[in-house]
């Protein structure tokens, strides 16, 4: 009883997080509402397994950690909307490919359900080309230089 006891601390929530982290995929791209994605979904048919593509607009992101899900809406044959929800970290998703980003003003794009055709389009944000990025940076640098010159006057 004389020597000092070592009392190990319980791991608690760290354990839960470790379990969750081990389930998360590291290869998932960043997805936002309004993105157009192409998924390769593994589907089991009896014993066989095949991969089915599914392409559409992400209209909702939900949950966090391993439980993060996203809902993809696509217009199938005869103009019928089909929505499917996937777990972001599911091993059944062979591949998630982000095709396009769009400018959206809300997180959940339920309003797309009431629209069809032209009005259901989203405005695309194109990734900037290298030349554009360079031009922008140059402009910013120029602005900064100007600002420094005038810094004293302000």
């Amino acid at each position, binding site marked *: *009883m004389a020597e000092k*006891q070592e*009392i*190990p601390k*319980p*791991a*608690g*929530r760290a*354990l*839960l997080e*470790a*379990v*969750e982290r081990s*389930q998360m995929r590291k290869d998932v791209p960043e997805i936002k509402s309004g993105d157009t994605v192409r998924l390769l979904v*593994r589907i*089991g048919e009896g014993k066989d397994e095949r991969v089915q593509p599914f392409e559409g607009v992400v209209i909702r992101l939900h949950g966090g*950690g*391993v*439980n993060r899900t996203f809902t993809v809406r696509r217009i199938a044959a005869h103009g019928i909307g089909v929505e499917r929800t996937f*777990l972001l*970290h*599911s*091993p*059944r998703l062979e591949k998630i490919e982000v095709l396009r980003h769009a400018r959206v003003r809300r997180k959940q794009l339920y309003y797309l359900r009431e629209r069809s055709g032209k009005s259901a389009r989203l405005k695309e944000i194109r990734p900037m080309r290298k030349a554009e990025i360079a031009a922008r940076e140059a402009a910013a640098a120029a602005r900064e230089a100007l600002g420094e010159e005038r810094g004293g006057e302000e």
Partner: protein
Amino acid sequence: MLNGLLGRKVGMTQVFGPDGNAIPVTVIEAGPCIVTQIKTTARDGYEAVQIGFEPIPVKRTTRPLLGHLGHRLPLLRAQRRRLQQYQQEQRAKARDQEEGAKSGSAAQTSEEKKPDKQIQKLLTLQENRQRRPGPELGPFRVLREVKLEEGASPDKVELGARFDVSLFKVGEFVDVIGTSKGKGFQGGVKRHGFAGGPKTHGQSDRHRAPGSIGSGTTPGRVLKGLRMAGHMGNARVTVKRLRVIQADPERNLLVVKGSVPGANGGLLMIRKHKR
């Protein structure tokens, strides 16, 4: 080998199964548990093992418990003071005598006073304190009794033996016992799943009523055990046949499929499932 282990509920999450299905699971931090007492048929009339879970500092426990766990108990503070005082007096006396002898003065040493009874008792107490043979254990926050696995003999279990999650194998079934979340005083609809009364057709005040509670003059009383409103939850609940999804002795990690009684952080007893 033991039949059960103690643990704490950490929380729920989900993991992916081999075919990509999401499985709802509960994460449990189980063990390590130390054997603190072995009960045998010869002495106790039955066979069991008492295990301790969650070590705590010595100052956070009681002396009776320390004694049970085989600790050598220090004297009580008052006893210690008394003894110290006595020893100091003795030393002072010895010094006085020495000085007296050196200076050669005629400091008459008073007759050697015998230490009084209480001090004598303390001295003998300190010398030969009884303690349970075997290792000093714990102390622990929780002590519980578990049974041995069928066919296992209690002679093989040693005092102070350590058991962890390696008791359970992935794919096995376990029963989990815990204390359910308290719900307070609840009516029959929530507590026993009564249907309640009709919601429409001119009903008033009967929507969640329990209905009739018995016949008339015969038997003239309400039968015992009739389900009624009352306190719900905060009771011992056993959930049987939960599949072990993960078991890692290194991290004291046990992951079982499905839910488990009680709030996060609640004490659980995990037992092997008996078919």
